[in-house]
C-alpha cells in the first residue's frame, strides 16, 4: 500500500516477510504480472503454484504433466501474456521437447521457467544439474541465493525474457526452494488480500499470427536458430554490465567465483575472501571474470554438482580449480566448503567452534566412546508408507505373489524398500507400463509381470504406454493405485480429483480412470478396495493368472490428503502372540517393539495409538492375535 504522509509525499511502504524461496518466486511472478502459471508437482518445486494461487487475477493450474504445462505457457505467451512454468529438475526433461525449440522461436509475453534441482536427491531419482540446460538451449539463467533474490530475479526474469526474446530459466536448488529468509516486500504483494491492487496484467492485445516466428518448419527454423545465437552476445553484454553479477572485493590474495546457495556457504566460512557472485549465470560475464582473475592472486570456483562455471571459465582460456577440490555429487554444506578451503590452503584449521567428531572426542566429552558405540546400533530411519496407507496391502500381496513388479515414482516407491521389498524398478515418471511390456518381450520371466503406478502418474504419462501395450498385444497386469491425490509431493490435485488450484473455485471436470482404460479397449478391469486385504490378494492373484493384458484399479483415498483420515478404530495385539512377525512385514509405522519377548526370544509387537484402524494387520495375522479395541 502506498501511504500518503503528512507532507503529502507518497512513501512506498516496505515490510519484511519470512518466505521460502518457493513463496518468494510466486510473489516475484505475481509482481511481474504473470497471467498464466502451470506446472506438475515435484519436490522441491511443488509449493510455488499453490502460493501463487492465493493471489487474485492469476490463472494457476496443475497440468497433467510438464510437457503440457510448458506448452500451455507457450500458448499464453503467443497470446502476448506473461506465463510461468514450474518444475523439478527431472520434469524439465519431460518438457525438454517444447523447451528446446521455444528457445529458438522466442516469446511474445515473457516466459519464465522455474527449475528446482535436488542435489543429494532428498526426494528424487537423480541429481542432474539443470544449469546445463541453459547452455544446451542457449537461454539465459538466473541463480538466486536466498528468498529475496528469488523474488527479485523472478520479477526481473520476465523483463529479460521480453527484452531478449527468449525463455528465461530461474534455477533453484532444494536449499533455496525450501529455505526461509527475510524478504523486503511491499505489503500489496502479500497473498490473500481482497484486492491485491498492485497487480498489472499485460494489456489485452488482439491475436495476430506470425508464421516465421512460431512455425518451426525447417525453412523458418534455420533463420530463428541464427537469431538465437546472435542473442547470446547481447545477453553476455547484459551479464557483464547490468550490475546483477557482482564482485565483492576484499582480500586480493584469495578470490572465489560462486553462485546460488554456495555463495552463502562461502560468505559464512570465508568472509575475508573476494567473491565474484554469479546471479545471472548464463551467459557468464566474461569481462568480469577476466577482471577478477587479473586482480585477485588465487581464485577458485565453488559450485555444487557439475563443473558448469568451471567449464565456462575454462573456455575463456582461464584455468581455475573447482571440481579438483569439491565433489561433483551431492550437496555442498558450510562444512564441506570449509574443508575444501582448508585443503586448498585458503584458510587454516582453527580452534573455532566448528569441529568434527574427532574434535569432539578431543574436547574431552566424558564417554564419547559410549556415544559412538550406541550410534552404531541406531537404525537408519528410512521413509515408509504411513499407518493406514492404502498402498500397503497391495505391496504385501505382491510380495506374497513373488512376481516381477515394474514400478514407478510416488509414495508407493516406498513399496520397494524393506520390509515390503515388492517393487523392482523406479527410473522415471510413467516407466512402469512401458517397462512391463519390455520385460514381457524379453521372455525372461516365467511368471506374469505386473506394472504399478499411482493415479497421478497414470495421468502424467501412464496412459500412453498402456495404449502402446494394448496396440502391441503385450501381456501384463497393470495396477493403478488410485488414492485420489498426488500424495508424495503434498497432496496436489490432478485430472482424477475434479479440482484444481485457481479454477478450484469452479470445479474442474473429473476424469474417470476406469473409463479411460475402457476407452483403450481393455475389457478385463478389476476395481478393489485395498482395505479389504483378502479380496485384494485374491483379485491380484486372479489377474496375474489371466493370460490377458488386464488392469487392476486399487481404490482407497490417501490417509493424509486432502484431509487426514482416522477411522477412529484402534487395533491391539492379544495375549498368545508368538512373535511370528507377519504383521511387522507390512512395515506399518504403528507396529512397534513392546519390549516383551516370546518364549523363543522373538519380539512381541505393540500397536501404538498412531494406528488409524485400517485393519490390514488383523487380516494378515494367521493366529488371530490382532483385534479391534
Amino acid at each position: 500500500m502506498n501511504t500518503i504522509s503528512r507532507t503529502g509525499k507518497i512513501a512506498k511502504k516496505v515490510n519484511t516477510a519470512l518466505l521460502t524461496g518457493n513463496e518468494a518466486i510466486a510473489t516475484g511472478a505475481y509482481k511481474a504480472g504473470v497471467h498464466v502459471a502451470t506446472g506438475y508437482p515435484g519436490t522441491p518445486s511443488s509449493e510455488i503454484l499453490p502460493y501463487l494461487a492465493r493471489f487474485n487475477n492469476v490463472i494457476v493450474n496443475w497440468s497433467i504433466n510438464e510437457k503440457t504445462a510448458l506448452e500451455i505457457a507457450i500458448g499464453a505467451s503467443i497470446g502476448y501474456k506473461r506465463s510461468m512454468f514450474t518444475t523439478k529438475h527431472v520434469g524439465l526433461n519431460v518438457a525438454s521437447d517444447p523447451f528446446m525449440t521455444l528457445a529458438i522461436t522466442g516469446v511474445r509475453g515473457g516466459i519464465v521457467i522455474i527449475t528446482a534441482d535436488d542435489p543429494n536427491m532428498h526426494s528424487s531419482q537423480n541429481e542432474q544439474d539443470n544449469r546445463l540446460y541453459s547452455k544446451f538451449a542457449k537461454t539465459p539463467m538466473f541463480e538466486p541465493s536466498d528468498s529475496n533474490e528469488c523474488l527479485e530475479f523472478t520479477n526481473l526474469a520476465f523483463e529479460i525474457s521480453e527484452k531478449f526474446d527468449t525463455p528465461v530459466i530461474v534455477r533453484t536448488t532444494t536449499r533455496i526452494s525450501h529455505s526461509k529468509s527475510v524478504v523486503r516486500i511491499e505489503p500489496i504483494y502479500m497473498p490473500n488480500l481482497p484486492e491485491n491492487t498492485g497487480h498489472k496484467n499485460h494489456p489485452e492485445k488482439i491475436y495476430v499470427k506470425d508464421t516465421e516466428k512460431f512455425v518451426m518448419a525447417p525453412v523458418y527454423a534455420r533463420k530463428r536458430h541464427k537469431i538465437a545465437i546472435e542473442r547470446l552476445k547481447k545477453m553476455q553484454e547484459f551479464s557483464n554490465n547490468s550490475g546483477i553479477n557482482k564482485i565483492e572485493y576484499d582480500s586480493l590474495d584469495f578470490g572465489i567465483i560462486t553462485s546460488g546457495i554456495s555463495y552463502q556457504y562461502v560468505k559464512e566460512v570465508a568472509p575475508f575472501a573476494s567473491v565474484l557472485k554469479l546471479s545471472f549465470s548464463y551467459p557468464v560475464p566474461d569481462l568480469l571474470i577476466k577482471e577478477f582473475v587479473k586482480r585477485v592472486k588465487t581464485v577458485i570456483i565453488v559450485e555444487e554438482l557439475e563443473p558448469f562455471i568451471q567449464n565456462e571459465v575454462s573456455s575463456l582460456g582461464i584455468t581455475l580449480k573447482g571440481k579438483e577440490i569439491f565433489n561433483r555429487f551431492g550437496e555442498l554444506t558450510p562444512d564441506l566448503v570449509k574443508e575444501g578451503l582448508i585443503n586448498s590452503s585458503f584458510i587454516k584449521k582453527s580452534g573455532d567452534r566448528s569441529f568434527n567428531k574427532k574434535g569432539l572426542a578431543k574436547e574431552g566429552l566424558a564417554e564419547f566412546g559410549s556415544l559412538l558405540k550406541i550410534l552404531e546400533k541406531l537404525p537408519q530411519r528410512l521413509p515408509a508408507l504411513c499407518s493406514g496407507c492404502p498402498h500397503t496391502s497391495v505391496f504385501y500381496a505382491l510380495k506374497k505373489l513373488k512376481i516381477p513388479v515394474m514400478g514407478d515414482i510416488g509414495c508407493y516407491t516406498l513399496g520397494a524398500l524393506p520390509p515390503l521389498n515388492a517393487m523392482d524398478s523406479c527410473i522415471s515418471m510413467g516407466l512402469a507400463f512401458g517397462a512391463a511390456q519390455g520385460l514381457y518381450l524379453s521372455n525372461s520371466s516365467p511368471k506374469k509381470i505386473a506394472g504399478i503406478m499411482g493415479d497421478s502418474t497414470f495421468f502424467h504419462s501412464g496412459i500412453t504406454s498402456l495404449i502402446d501395450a494394448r496396440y502391441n498385444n503385450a501381456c501384463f497386469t497393470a495396477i493403478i493405485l488410485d488414492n485420489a491425490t498426488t500424495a508424495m509431493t503434498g497432496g496436489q490435485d490432478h485430472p482424477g480429483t475434479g479440482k484444481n488450484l485457481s479454477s478450484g473455485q469452479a470445479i474442474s471436470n473429473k476424469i474417470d480412470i476406469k473409463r479411460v482404460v475402457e476407452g483403450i479397449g481393455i475389457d478385463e478391469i478389476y476395481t478393489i478396495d485395498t482395505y479389504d486385504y483378502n479380496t485384494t490378494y485374491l483379485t491380484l492373484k486372479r489377474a496375474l493368472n489371466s493370460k490377458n493384458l488386464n488392469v487392476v484399479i486399487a481404490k482407497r483415498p490417501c490417509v493424509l490428503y486432502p484431509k487426514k483420515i482416522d477411522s477412529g478404530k484402534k487395533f491391539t495385539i492379544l495375549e498368545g502372540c508368538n512373535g511370528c512377525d507377519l504383521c511387522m512385514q507390512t512395515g506399518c509405522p504403528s507396529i512397534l517393539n513392546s519390549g516383551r519377548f516370546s518364549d523363543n526370544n522373538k519380539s512381541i509387537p505393540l500397536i501404538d495409538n498412531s494406528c488409524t484402524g485400517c485393519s490390514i494387520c488383523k487380516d494378515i495375522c494367521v493366529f488371530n492375535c490382532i483385534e479391534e479395541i
Partner: protein
Amino acid sequence: MNTQNILVCGIGGQGVVLAGKIISRAAHEKGFDLKTSEIHGMSQRGGSVSTHIRFGRKVFSPLISQNCADIILSFDMYETLRCAADFANKNTLIISSSYGKIPLWTSSRKNDRIYIAEITAALKSNFGKLFTINDRELAMDLGNLKISNIISIGFLSKFTGIEDAFWLKAIESSVSEKTKEINMEAFLAGRKWKEIIGV
C-alpha cells in the same frame, strides 16, 4: 549477538515443520536476520526430519555447521541421538522428548535392539545440558496429546532471549483458530516448566 543455531528434529509427520515455523516466526517478529532450512517430500513419510534455524544480526548459510548447534529440540529420543552426534557440542542445550519410537521391523533382531534408557544414559554422560521432557504426559494433563511439541517450545523459549509477546504472536499466526487457546496454554505451561525444574 552471535548467530543462534537451533535444530529441531524428529520423525516425519510429528510436527517438526510447524515447530520450526513457530520458532522462526518468533525470531523474525523480534527483528533478527534469519534463515531456516528444511526438507520436504519423501523423508516426510516417517523418515528422520530436521529443520535448521539460524538467527542473529546477519545470517548467510541456512544450514548449521557440524557440532555448532546452540539448542537441539527433539521430538523423538532416537532422533536426539542422531542429531546430537552430528550437531551438538558440550555446550549445546538439548531438549528432548523422553519418548522415542522405532518401527519394529528395523529393530527386531536381537543384536539390533536399542533401548531408550541406554540412549538417555549415553547422552547424559556426554552432554551436560540435556533435558528430557515427558511432554506426552504433560500434554495429556492439558487434555490433548497433539500439543506436546508446543510445551517443549515453551521450555525452549526461555533460552533464546526472545520475549513472550513475540512467541505468542508467532504461535497465534501458526496454528488454527480452533486450537489457538490450548496451544497458548501449552506454551505457557512449557515456559513455566523451566522454573519448576530450577534451571
